[in-house]
């Protein structure tokens, strides 16, 4: 048990919670018990019902059956507002921030207050709160200017501003680099010290073991078990054990990467410079070469120019200086041989309101065109085939993309970009928020691409990079720190300092 006295009622008690969606039983009689001052982790595959359960607790969904008690009192949480009133706040996987407003404006959004907005006073209060928790954030910055990691801190700050007692975080670490995760855990431990409860959804097992007091494993809408990590910690096979509990089958975490000869230059960057949203230099004089037959990783803490670099290569952001060549020809002239799997799979990689077939045609529409016409039958057949080949869990090609879970959507996008048979595939945070099963499939797909061409992998997940990449470029503040050849150089201690901007004599 945690530090709270045993006689106190649990902060959250959910009993027999049932939630159905058309065609899906998302929660099927779920029990959850979270004490005050406890960090409780929800584990499970994509689509296991973790997010649904938490959205019920945060007042976004109404359960079809079941009971919720907060501090021993039965409550009905009919809206997020009412959940807030009970001290429950949720940070979603997709942040709920208004891009054009400043940090402090976002924090008071939806709160009652006087008609006149006292900006100076507000900013002082937000700044003070931020400093209390050791957040380094400019309260006057506009959200769109911030990196994903910074935006997450704004979300946490927003919850703290509302005095939440139970903080729900849906995959908060998926976007963060190792240092940032440590910082987040620091915050979580502070919350715990103040007797607040944290419910934490994640797929990363090491994190679970490091931070959790209790772990609840969900599968297909049901609780498989509730365990304490301190017991599991002694077990050498902890990771496999938990992984098996989640997915319900043995998962091999080794990717089985075969050594492979690099086959000649694919992508070459010559002193490439790109500006960020605020006009600042986001990528500065970046040069590197990527060969066919290798996975080349760009590793760095979020917000150090990765996004701008990828957008420039994909043609979504103007290049400020320097040049990029794909197979010897200027990239700006012809991007046909380049495919890009974006980090934002919901709004950049796909169109939620369109069908899977239409999404499949999004980047491949030229292949399906005869004269001015689209060949719908071929699109449908192709989609059906790819859904099967990539194990996308979907009723059929006419399903709307918004109905897919994150992992399935990612597999669909990968299937689409693969089908274009690109020479170079850019994969941006390709396994962010995916469960182990889906992550493994994505990794295998990237290794297949390595056989056919090259991969530029942009990731903040050190483990992913070390498992997959042949070479790693560490970037810091838009500059290339160093390139490490993982096939030769096993001295990985350098990577951490490099990510933090420290260049130690090599």
């Amino acid at each position, binding site marked *: 048990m945690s530090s709270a006295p045993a006689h106190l009622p649990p902060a959250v008690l959910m009993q027999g919670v049932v939630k159905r969606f058309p065609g899906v039983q998302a929660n099927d009689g779920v029990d959850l018990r979270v004490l005050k001052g406890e960090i409780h982790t929800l584990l499970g595959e994509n689509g296991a019902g973790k997010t649904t359960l938490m959205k019920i607790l945060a007042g976004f969904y109404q359960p079809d059956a079941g009971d919720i008690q907060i501090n021993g009192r039965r409550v009905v949480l009919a809206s997020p507002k009412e959940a807030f009133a009970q001290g429950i706040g949720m940070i979603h996987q997709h942040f709920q921030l208004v891009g054009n407003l400043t940090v402090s404006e976002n924090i008071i959004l939806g709160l009652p207050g006087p008609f006149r907005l006292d900006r100076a006073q507000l900013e002082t209060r937000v700044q003070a709160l931020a400093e209390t928790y050791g957040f380094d954030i400019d309260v006057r910055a506009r959200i769109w200017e911030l990196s994903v990691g910074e935006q997450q801190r704004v979300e946490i700050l927003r919850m703290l501003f509302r005095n939440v007692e139970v903080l729900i975080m849906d995959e908060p670490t998926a976007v963060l680099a190792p240092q940032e995760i440590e910082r987040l855990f620091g915050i979580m431990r502070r919350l715990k010290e103040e007797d607040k409860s944290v419910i934490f959804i994640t797929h990363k097992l090491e994190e679970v073991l490091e931070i959790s007091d209790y772990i609840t494993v969900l599968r297909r809408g049901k609780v498989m078990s509730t365990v304490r990590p301190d017991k599991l910690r002694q077990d050498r096979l902890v990771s496999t054990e938990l992984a098996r509990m989640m997915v319900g089958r043995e998962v091999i975490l080794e990717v089985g990467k075969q050594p492979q000869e690099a086959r000649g230059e694919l992508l070459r960057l010559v002193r490439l410079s790109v500006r960020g949203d605020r006009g600042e230099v986001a990528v500065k004089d970046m040069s590197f070469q990527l060969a066919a037959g290798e996975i080349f990783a760009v590793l760095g803490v979020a917000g150090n120019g990765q996004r701008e670099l990828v957008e420039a290569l*994909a043609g*979504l952001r103007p290049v400020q200086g320097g040049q990029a060549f794909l197979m010897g020809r200027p990239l700006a002239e012809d991007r046909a041989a380049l495919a890009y799997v974006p980090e934002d799979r919901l709004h950049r990689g796909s169109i939620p309101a369109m069908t899977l077939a239409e999404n499949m045609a*999004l980047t491949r529409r030229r292949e399906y065109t005869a004269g001015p016409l689209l060949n719908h039958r071929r699109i449908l057949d192709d989609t059906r085939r790819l859904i099967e080949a990539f194990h996308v869990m979907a009723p059929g090609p006419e399903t709307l993309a918004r109905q897919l879970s994150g992992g399935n959507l990612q597999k669909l996008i990968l299937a689409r970009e693969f089908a274009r048979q690109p020479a170079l595939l850019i994969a941006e945070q390709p396994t962010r928020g995916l469960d182990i099963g889906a992550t493994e499939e994505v990794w295998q797909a990237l290794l297949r691409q390595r056989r056919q061409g090259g991969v530029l992998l942009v990731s903040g997940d050190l483990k992913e990079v070390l498992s997959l990449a042949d070479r790693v470029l560490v970037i810091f503040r838009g500059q290339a720190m160093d390139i490490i050849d993982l096939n030769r150089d096993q001295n990985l201690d350098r990577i951490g300092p490099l990510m933090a901007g420290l260049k130690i004599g090599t």
Partner: protein
Amino acid sequence: MRISLQKRSRQPWWFGSLVVLTGVLVALVFVGLLFMWVGVNPWQAYLEILRGAFGSADNFSEVLVRATPILLCGLAVGLAGRMLIWNIGAEGQLVLGAMAGSAVGLFASPHLPGILVLPAMLLAAFAGGGLWGLVPGLLKARLKVNEIITSLMLNYVAILWLEHLYFGPWRDPAGRGFPGTALFPKVACLPRFWGTRIHLGFFVALAAMVVIWFLLSRTRWGFEIRAVGAGPEAARYAGIPINRHIIWVMLISGGLAGLAGIGEAAGIHLRLQQGLAAGNGYVGIIAAWLARLHPFWIGVIALLLGALAVGGDQLQIVTQVPSAISLVLEGAILFCVLAAQVIKDYRLVLKRGPRP
């Protein structure tokens, strides 16, 4: 006591239609109360509207006449709406189309072979409306100027320009001061059918409806337009040339409204005169959104709105209630159906007790 909205999770297939029909019913009840207030039996009033619109083949032909410009303007607004472009300027594009087509009909027709006059007029009308739509389109694509403002403002420019023409240089010298151009020569009038006022423009509108549907649902161009509307960021990612599409869509959108204009001028009034800009461009916005931007539904809605207008005229004749009541009814229906679409997706929950 307070009200909150909750998203509905499950609903049977007929639920949506039922809610929308209920919305229409609520609007009818509301306007019925209005009838009672002005001392008219609502049953009789609605009966007269129905009789006026559908009472005879002749009456119904007028419904189709009224529906023609609404359909074309609805398609104009709807096509742009599919890629999230708000063309509020169909009214002005209609006027420009009428002007350009009329210029051909009035001044160029003697120099053209008879068989080419009508095609040339339609083409000119399409081009005139299209160019007027192109202005906000280019401004949006090149300079990111908000198309709602520019297209709306150009309506006033177009209407004033039209007035200048028929009050000034184009005024009929034999018209004894009547503000309008001379009647079109016979070759420049759109043919009418079956002894009614149904003119060639009606069939042009039907054809346009099918063409727009085909473009949107069967061609790559239409797919790209829909993709831009449904997911602008994904469309940019997929390399869809958004700005080029904005320009083409506004050209075609304006062209459709322009066809509505020449239909009214050369099919109904047979000259340019006051009353050409009768608000069809705005009614088109209503039609497009009630139809949720689907071409065939725009056709259905245009027919109903036409029926309402004709029925309103009949009502005025019989009961002396101003025919403007049909505009009130139109507004009430729009309001209630849009509200119903919210109710379709959300459940209203009444709650007792103080705010938390």
